[in-house]
């Protein structure tokens, strides 16, 4: 059973979704992520979807779920890297992901998380961009 890798970067967790996700994989990710948040005490989660060329209602739901679950576990989630054609399609679908914060890229996502956490990040973050 494959898992989507979750990277720990200081207080943040970075999830880069690169494969064409099937439903089981998406559910597995939700499980893994909530576990990891608890184990690491991470306060922020970056969900990188820059490699996804399609987001349908199921994946949209997964994103909203992850965001919701993380919040309950006291972590903020930021969705980064949405492709223009995906954004346009989501708008057409009427799927606006309410309550999910978004940023253009990982760099800005981290800035957003930091200000959300209100803490200066001292941990060595290896270059991501």
């Amino acid at each position, binding site marked *: 059973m494959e898992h989507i890798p979750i990277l720990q970067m200081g207080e943040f967790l970075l999830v880069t979704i690169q494969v064409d996700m099937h439903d*089981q994989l998406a559910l597995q990710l939700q499980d893994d992520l909530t576990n990891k948040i608890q184990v690491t005490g991470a306060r922020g989660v970056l969900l990188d979807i820059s490699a996804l*060329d*399609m987001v*349908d209602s*199921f994946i949209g739901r997964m994103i909203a779920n992850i965001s919701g679950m993380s919040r309950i576990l006291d972590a903020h989630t930021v969705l980064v890297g949405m492709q223009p054609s995906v954004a346009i*399609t989501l708008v057409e679908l009427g799927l606006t992901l309410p309550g999910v914060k978004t940023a253009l890229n990982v760099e800005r996502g981290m800035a957003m998380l930091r200000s959300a956490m209100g803490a200066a990040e001292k941990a060595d973050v290896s270059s991501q961009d």
Partner: protein
Amino acid sequence: MSVVKTETLELRNEQDIVLARQAVRRLSQACGFSLVDQTKMVTAASELARNTVTYGQGGTVVCETILDGARTGLRLTFADSGPGIADVSLAMTDGWTSGNGLGMGLTGAKRLVNEFDLDTKPGSGTRVTITRWK
């Protein structure tokens, strides 16, 4: 109108949904759709394929590349012999769901394509046909 190419895929499980998406992406590109139009078609296909697998208890999708005069199009027909939809107008309302989730499958897909046709009856399965023109 003529059918230039036909491809039929089985939709039995989630892996098939992924394969269907990939096939529709490939076919949309071959039709010369813009990136946005490709994405819309693939997304609609994903929604309907999921419906077929989850609610229709499995079925097929027939992908046809069609030619009507000068314009090229892609027509996808999702068919299953599942329980069918009892109340179509309810199913087509935004936000309706019979399972878990947002249930945007049908209405969402309709917004992403040029032509949409739903043929269903309780007990006789469901057939959804969507078409996108270049």
